[in-house]
């Protein structure tokens, strides 16, 4: 009896703490989305003090005014971004044209390699796999230097190939997919071999379907990594006109600040959709990434 009395308040406290943190975590995203429905003048009124005034005597609050719900919901900013200024759409197109091929090719190359690391385990292979892990853990400051030198040698600097090609073969997904594939029971593969299946058949008909969730998880992780890319364009592409939206958003000028929230919202839609659709797979994928040891 005494214990029960104590337990209920504890649960309430825990729930309040959890909801408080959840609200903190959601707040920036929600604020960005709701503010994208504000009119230009409302944005200036609320944030003009930070991003500079339009200079035509528009009302501007002295301090920042965080507002979750716009006074008047308007799609004007989206209209600006999507219809009136093609530059944003063009940058979004660059982002997509870089990220989608990288995700597809990296997952393909990595799943082939993961199959090899799973099926043909020799001493030499284990050493190689270890090298992949080390490489995966290296920060950009290290890996971009060799990437850059090779791109210079191949004469592909200032072209999108200098970002695409290293992206196709980045070792991160090899590691995660290998960890998944090594969990496929050996008996499945042996049964297929007895039925006369060749290695490519086993790969396509058994290994890949059994790793569907993992492939999706890896695709999500690779997608968000490259959707966020900043370092590669800065170093590989000297022409700013070629930079994707992920770099451009930081250089948006004050006159366009109203549209900035709308651009930011549009830019988060693809990754958030992938997240909501594949959350279970993603969580499983993260769980498997824990621990370096196979």
């Amino acid at each position: 009896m005494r214990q029960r009395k104590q337990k209920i308040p504890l649960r309430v406290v825990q729930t309040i703490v959890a909801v408080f943190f959840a609200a903190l975590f959601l707040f920036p995203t929600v604020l960005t989305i709701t503010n994208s429905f504000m009119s230009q003048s409302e944005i200036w009124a609320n944030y003009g003090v930070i991003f500079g005034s339009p200079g035509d005597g528009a009302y501007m609050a002295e301090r920042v005014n965080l507002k979750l719900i716009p006074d008047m919901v308007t799609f004007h900013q989206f209209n600006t971004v999507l219809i009136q200024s093609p530059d944003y759409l063009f940058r979004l197109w660059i982002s997509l044209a870089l990220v989608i091929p990288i995700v597809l090719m990296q997952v393909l190359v990595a799943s082939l390699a993961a199959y090899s690391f799973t099926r043909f385990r020799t001493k030499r292979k284990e050493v190689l796999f270890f090298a992949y892990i080390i490489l995966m853990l290296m920060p950009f400051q290290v890996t971009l230097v060799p990437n850059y030198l090779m791109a210079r040698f191949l004469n592909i600097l200032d072209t999108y190939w200098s970002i695409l090609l290293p992206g196709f073969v980045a070792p991160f997904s090899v590691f995660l997919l290998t960890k998944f594939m090594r969990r496929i029971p050996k008996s499945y593969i042996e049964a297929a071999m007895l039925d006369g299946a060749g290695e490519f058949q086993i790969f396509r008909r058994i290994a890949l379907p059994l790793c569907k969730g993992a492939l999706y998880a890896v695709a999500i992780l690779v997608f968000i990594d490259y959707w966020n890319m900043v370092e590669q364009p800065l170093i590989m592409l000297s022409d700013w006109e070629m930079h994707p939206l992920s770099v451009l958003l930081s250089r948006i000028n004050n006159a366009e600040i109203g549209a900035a929230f709308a651009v930011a919202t549009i830019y988060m839609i693809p990754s958030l959709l992938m997240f909501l659709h594949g959350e279970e797979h993603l969580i499983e994928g993260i769980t498997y990434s824990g621990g370096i040891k196979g």
Partner: protein
Amino acid sequence: MKKTLAKANRRLGDKFYSGAFLGPSVVGVALFFIVPFFVVIYYAFIDNPVGQNFVGFRNFQNVLGNLSFQDAVRHTVLFSALAVPLAVVLALGLAVLLEQKIPMKSQLRTFFLSPMMVPVASIVLIWQVLFHQNGAINDIISNIGTATGLFEFSGIDWFTSPYSQLPIVVLFLWRNLGYNMILFMAALNNIPRDILEVAQLEGGKPWFIFRTIKLRFLSPTILFVTILSVINSFRVFREVYLLTGSHPYGRLYMLQHFMNNMFDLLDYQRLAAAAILMTLAMIAIIGIMFIVEHWYGRDIEG
């Protein structure tokens, strides 16, 4: 005779397939990472790409003595020292919280994880609004000060103040806590139930059980999350660049800024030497992780 031939044939076949599957990846990795890395090593020991005279460790001394490099290292280490412990402790806290009997657990988990899928570029606007001189954070602090009568706070511009790393630490935590939390939740789930049940039957208090049993089983995960967070903290350049550009104030000048400047100056010698120094530092960190994980995990893995 036939049997050995068949066996030899199969071994040959295995070799062929093993190579065919691995080929694209190995060729690519060799081409873009391994082979040019040897060029990096070569560049680190010569005076310039034209003369190509061997200069010993002079390039390394050059980099280590460079004031910008020293600043960049100091700031990056300071950032890691601030962000990593918080990223570990708070994530563990959230994981334990979601283990309790509270409603809407799976929704809460989704909310905590969602920031990792929000592009940094999309969120920098809000961070500027929050941490500006006239921003919301300053208002909140000064309101608290006025309301409690304890202090007066007129506000600072966070990004140009001595506390410029704090907004970035908050952003780092916001984006990374969810991932770490998932790792801890999985580890908590893996603790054998019977041990916990026995401890409860014996009358162990929750805090005692957490300290003596759960933490013990979590130690490999704590290490892994720590290393992961250290590596992620080196990548925080993205956030800094998007918030403050390529020439940030004081304490936000990070290692990647230094590297970018060297790229701009086409100073391959310093670039190469700096990359090698960082590789060595990373190998040391990873090596320590392996040793500690091996040493710590022994008695619970077996």
